[in-house]
């Protein structure tokens, strides 16, 4: 279990780093675009690049799942005893997994449609299928959805 956890953490850190690099690139691109736009030479297709970059940044967020960094209202659940807290967490985790499995399935079906129609982006004429594949992969529940089921956000056992 420890080895699996370490492997998942390593993989997530790599994705987190990629997202950080893409975010930094988006900052530079937006800055250059704003400056050049004022000088009368806007960067062609900057909007598309930002859209692609945004999807990468949002998609590579498994570390967020692992750290339980999402916003949760735990006013009531914290008042329960540890055993019941564990049960509630298991149920909510299972609900989250089911929701994301459903979204992943729909993304997959949509990606098949997009592949069939050969949808392209407006400026660069890039196929949009990689975006949908990316969204499909990030919607599929991964080990970090299930791991730390019995732990609080700080990683300590409850």
């Amino acid at each position, binding site marked *: 279990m420890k080895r699996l956890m370490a492997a998942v953490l390593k993989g997530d850190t790599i994705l987190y780093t990629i997202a950080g690099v893409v975010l930094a690139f988006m900052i530079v691109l*937006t*800055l250059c675009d704003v400056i050049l736009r004022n000088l009368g030479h806007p960067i062609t297709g900057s909007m598309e690049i930002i859209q692609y970059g945004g999807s990468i940044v949002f998609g590579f967020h498994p570390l967020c799942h692992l750290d339980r960094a999402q916003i949760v*209202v735990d006013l009531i659940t914290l008042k329960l005893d540890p055993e019941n807290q564990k049960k*509630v967490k298991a149920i909510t985790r299972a609900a*989250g997994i089911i*929701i994301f499995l*459903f*979204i992943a399935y729909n*993304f997959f079906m949509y990606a098949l449609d997009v592949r069939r129609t050969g949808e392209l982006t407006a400026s660069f004429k890039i196929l949009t299928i990689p975006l949908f594949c990316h969204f499909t992969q990030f919607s599929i529940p991964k080990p970090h959805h299930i791991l730390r089921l019995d732990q609080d956000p700080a990683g300590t056992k409850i």
Partner: protein
Amino acid sequence: MSDIAVGIYGIIVLLALFLTGLEMAYCMILVGFVGFTFLMSFSAASNLVVKDFFDTFTTYSYTVIPLFIMMGELARIPILPRGSTWVRTNGLGTSPAVWP
């Protein structure tokens, strides 16, 4: 049941779901999906989930997020705090009424 009634029930269910400890984003996805299924159809709601996800994550409006991060980084390094301290001490005075 009218659309408005469905909306009101949806909000009540959403607030109840928030208290269960389920992540807020998941609650909103769930309630939105069920509500749209109730009003339209299951296949329409399935398509809407995908379209909404895609449109939300690839919107150009998020350009401001990297810029906010850059602004935060600029505020973190000592140039801006030093500048604001300078303004506070030299520019706008040191009156406790203005700068508690």
